[in-house]
């Protein structure tokens, strides 16, 4: 060990920073000759952006804690003999930093050379090619020669981390973005760094799959082509993609997305940060499971071909479903809706479709029952903004596990817990168990009793020890959040207790959040724009015909004949009489209302042919057909 005392700042401790400037919250500094004033605590790498200088980075990511691992961002700072990493250095008053001095540039060259020493350089066959920071930085900051004559390290090139993600261990540059995401943002440490030194690599417990509801984000965070999506792999080059802003249809969180399509086929969906909704993350359910089936593309695999959706209307003739015209299909649908029938709509339809359903179609089909599948009505409409969540100090979840129901909401609640908020979960499942101050783990049918006990603990103090302990965590000051599972809200006495508890905690929509959140993608839109339909319960007994609108799966066979309007492949079951092709939400323009009541626009990100109507168009076609029938009948 050698004597590396300060000023290198490597060991021991140093004196605190010099006296602050006039405004203690601002700091003035010079970067690459440009003077500027920035808020105290700003990292040099961010200050440089403000000064119009780009400092190259790999491991740094604004949402993750700085680690200073890759060393790409080396800069020279006056009075400091050692190059410093701009991503870990907070600005200080009078600092003079230079990222383009010969010394800094030689540092950047060195890092690039070291990174490439063992890198396979298989850009031509790499998914990341064309959108790869390593490629870009090598071009801008590297010297273009390799002096490495030893054999490169050989490692696994296509290691299946899970059924969603593949790892190329040779391409990995050990920036720890993926592992930091799983430990800092998700908290499950589902992905870690293994081994050490030059043998370091990313992985899971030997043989276990990388399972986390948020794993897909690591693909986006990876600055090289080391983590790739098994769905998107080898499907396209970045420059061939058309990118369309949209909103996820996986749940009512309303995460913002960008749809990437090639020749009209949507190949992947990535995050499009909305700081008030998704914080830049998507969950795997949304990212991987909501895309429309790939069609119209040469590279469709056999498995995908099987799930291919109908692109033209089908009608049952001589026992099988056969292509027909839209008119005939609509006509048959209208016939099916005579008598004791039902129209069941998906809550993932757009707001425009909801309105058309409630005010256009329903009045024309008075004898049919209308309803949503799943049922969407909540008797306790949610109040409060997502932006309030990180500041919540008391959080109560009653029978509601956001981890699986509204995954990205769980990340916000985790943020609150990290900021010192106390989370108390009551119920059977609690994906946020690591971050919970208390978890009263009871079966769902005991949530009511436990809520009563929790309320008693807070008011009279009479309760069992674990409940009292949990209640203790809720006695602090600060904004409160109380969320009740909408299915449980149907129980009036539990609803009453939950509301009382919310009141006891001082929960309000201005500073916190309270209510029974709508869960399906546009369930809140459904309740707001189609209130009659939303609050109706459909009795399925003895129905003769059912129209399914945008519902992914058939209802159980019951004797009723089915008309199915869908964007997915359907099972050609014998009770299916008509199939009406419909656009997927990602292929239509429209709006969604998320669980907090925020309305957001979807744009058509994919294209499957002119003849397929959107949900809204289809409803209006149906209305027209019904009108004709009425006219005919009259």
């Amino acid at each position, binding site marked *: 060990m*050698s004597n590396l005392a300060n000023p290198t700042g490597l060991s021991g401790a140093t004196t605190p920073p010099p006296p602050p400037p006039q405004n203690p919250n601002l700091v003035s500094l010079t970067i690459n000759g440009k003077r500027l004033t920035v808020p105290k605590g700003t990292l040099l790498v961010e200050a440089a952006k403000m000064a119009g200088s780009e400092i190259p980075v790999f491991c740094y990511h604004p949402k993750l804690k700085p680690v200073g691992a890759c060393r790409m961002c080396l800069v020279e700072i006056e009075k400091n003999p050692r190059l410093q990493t701009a991503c870990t250095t907070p600005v200080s008053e009078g600092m003079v930093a230079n990222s383009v001095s010969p010394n800094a540039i030689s540092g950047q060259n060195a890092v690039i050379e070291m990174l490439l020493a063992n890198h396979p350089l298989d850009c031509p066959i790499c998914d990341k090619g064309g959108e790869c920071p390593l490629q870009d930085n090598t071009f801008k900051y590297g010297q273009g020669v390799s002096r490495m004559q030893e054999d490169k390290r050989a490692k696994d090139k296509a290691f299946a981390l899970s059924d969603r993600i593949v790892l190329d261990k040779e391409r990995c540059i050990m920036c720890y973005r993926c592992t930091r995401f799983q430990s800092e943002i998700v908290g499950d440490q589902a992905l870690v*760094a293994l081994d050490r030194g030059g043998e370091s690599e990313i992985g899971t417990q030997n*043989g276990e799959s990388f399972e986390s509801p948020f794993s897909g984000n690591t693909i986006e965070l990876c600055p090289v082509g080391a983590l790739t999506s098994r769905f998107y792999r080898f499907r396209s080059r970045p420059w061939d993609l058309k990118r369309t802003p949209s909103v996820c249809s996986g749940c009512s969180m309303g995460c913002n997305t960008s749809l990437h399509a090639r020749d009209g086929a949507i190949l992947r969906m990535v995050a499009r940060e909305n700081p008030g909704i998704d914080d830049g993350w998507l969950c795997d359910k949304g990212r991987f499971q909501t895309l429309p089936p790939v069609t119209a593309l040469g590279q469709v695999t056999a498995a995908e071909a099987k799930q291919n959706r109908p692109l033209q209307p089908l009608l049952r003739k001589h026992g099988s479903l056969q292509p027909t015209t839209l008119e005939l299909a609509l006509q048959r649908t209208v016939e099916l809706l005579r008598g004791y029938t039902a129209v069941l709509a998906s809550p993932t339809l757009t707001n425009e479709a909801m309105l058309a359903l409630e005010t256009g179609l329903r009045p024309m089909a008075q004898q049919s029952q209308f309803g949503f599948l799943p049922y969407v009505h909540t008797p306790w409409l949610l109040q409060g903004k997502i932006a309030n969540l990180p500041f919540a100090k008391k959080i109560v979840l009653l029978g509601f596990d956001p981890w699986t129901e509204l995954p990205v909401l769980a990340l916000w609640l985790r943020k609150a817990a990290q900021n010192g908020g106390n989370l108390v979960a009551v119920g059977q499942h609690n994906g946020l168990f690591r971050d919970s101050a208390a978890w009263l783990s009871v079966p769902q049918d005991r949530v009511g009793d436990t809520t009563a006990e929790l309320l008693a603990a807070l008011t009279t103090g009479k309760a069992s020890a674990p409940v009292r302990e949990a209640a203790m965590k809720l006695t602090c000051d600060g904004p409160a959040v109380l969320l009740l599972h909408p299915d449980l809200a149907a129980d009036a006495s539990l609803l009453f207790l939950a509301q009382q508890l919310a009141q006891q905690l001082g929960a309000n929509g201005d500073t916190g959040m309270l209510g029974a959140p709508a869960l399906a993608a546009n369930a809140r839109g459904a309740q707001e724009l189609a209130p009659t339909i939303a609050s109706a319960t459909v009795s399925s007994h003895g129905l003769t015909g059912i129209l399914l609108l945008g519902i992914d799966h058939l209802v159980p066979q019951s004797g009723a004949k089915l008309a199915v309007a869908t964007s997915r492949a359907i099972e050609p079951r014998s009770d299916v009489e008509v199939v009406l092709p419909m656009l997927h939400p990602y292929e239509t323009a429209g709006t969604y209302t998320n669980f907090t009541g925020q309305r957001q626009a979807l744009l058509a990100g994919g294209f499957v042919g002119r003849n397929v109507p959107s949900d809204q168009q289809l409803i209006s076609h149906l209305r027209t057909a019904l009108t004709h029938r009425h006219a005919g009948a009259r």
Partner: protein
Amino acid sequence: MNPVSNQPTGATTSMHALSLSTATRTAIQQEVLRYPHFRTALLPSLKLAQREIGYLPPSILNEVADLVGVSHAAAYELTTFYSMLHTKPHGRLAVEVCVQLPCGFCGGERLLKQLEAGLGIKPGETTQDGMLSLHRTPECMGGCHRSPMVRIGDHYVENLTAKADVDALCAELQAGRIPTTKGTLNHDCHPATANANASKKPIEYTPILLPRQPRSTQVSLAEYQASRGYEGLKQALQKQPAEVIEIVKQSNLRGRGGAAFSAGMKWSFVPKAAGPKYLVVNADESEPGTFKDRELMEVESHMLLEGMAIASYAIGCKEAFLYLRGEYVEAGDRMRAAIGEAEQQGLLGKNILGSGFELKIHVFLGAGAYICGEETALLESLEGNRPMPRSRPPFPAISGLYSKPTVVNNVETICNVPHILLHGADWFKKIGPNEKSAGPKIYCLSGWVNRPGNYELPLGAVTFRELIEHWGMGMRDGAKIKGVLPAGISAPIVPADQLDAKLDYEGVAGAGSMLGSASLIVIPEDVSIVRAATRMLEFFRHESCGKCTPCREGTQWLHKILLRFEQGRGEPKDLDLLLSLSNQISGKVLCALGDFATSPVTATIKHFRPEYLAAILNGQGARDAQGTTDWSQRG
């Protein structure tokens, strides 16, 4: 060598066990509750599990992870990082032979060959019955003064110079007995016993930190108290904490772990506000050629405890940690025993000496990773995380263990503290010629000298040459000195013509190197410098944590090039490449390890370029003066 009756731990358990015994599970559950944060229990729990099963197969890893409350992947992460944890079956007794400098050229390689022959297995192999496995390790294990040495299970067997001893050792092992190191004697390194043939003794000095040299048994509490032990603590408790800090500051005590930062100053950075604060004593001692902290802990355990109590009182810490390298099982056991003694007498624990001050000390063992000596990596290790250094700021004094204010000091640094409190700052400053860096210093002398060992002398009172000749009793076989590595293998080699430099920070810096932890490895003229450099880089390549690109990639690259030189496949242009790559690492990485890793390359090329050129030109690679191509004939 005394055969001991206790079986190799866990040997009675079935190798096929897929789950832990109730006893181990209970022990793990206790670990989880022992520390301020449950995650700290992860590493000790993995070690407990391995102790029972012999290695850590997936089912066991998962069981431990579930008991501690971390993800399965997190348990695997640590297991793959630390070299003492194994995911594959491993001999019940690992027989590990150090081949790093100095052991490598002092008989380590010879010993390895003898053990191969005697045990009938090659390095990396395990005997058919699964009992023994043989390992060649580039990691030094802190037995350099008694090299060649071997670690067997948790025990050290040292001074294996005689063939008869090696034969006896093999016989013991094959009979299923573990020979122990208990009873291995220190060389008599008391400063009073100098070379009788030396012309003149440079100084007279009575040791303070190792007053009982050449003792190797532990000093009991009673014995320690008989020599005014714990009186420094009594003095301290009568003062305000701030006064204690001031005294230590005044004494100019500088850290002995390498960076030489003022101890009192470091303590003074700890915020005064209430709240948890931690003292962490760094006993990782993994620098090749360093073995002083081991002797301090094994012998003068109470001196360290008293120092820890005073330091904790000064900074307001109620829970302190002693972090030992994983190999120091014996030292750890002795420290735990001493803590027990001290707690019984009210010298540790609640209400110490009736003052109201309380202190709990955790003894925590690592699991084989040099980087854990770096203070922030050490803190990560304590927190149960992958031990990679943190970037600063924040400094540990502000945000350290569990993000709380933390002081990290070396064992030797802390052992000075009781004496300072007892005798005063002025007394301390007067020890040695230089008031600015004053006090006693233990020099770890190893390599090709007649009497290697820990020599305590005043800082800066003697020169390299005096230390080697008067106390080290000169060179073995009258050999000439090629050079001396002054700070383990982490600082530039000081060539033979610079050995009149004084052994203090300034003196060694004047000779173009650094004193660091003062671990002097003496390299004789006939040893190939190319092989020595290759061996040193093997260490750094093995120990780089892999966080920083230049260190992770660069140490591996440098080592690969040096291997070519060693094998006679170097090219003249490679010398420039070696220097250029060193420059690309040094100063561009997060912790000092990356910098350390380049000095074996740059300094040896600087002073011994002709040897590198010869290794190219002769086409035969690294050759020792006798023409040998390895060190298995030496020592």
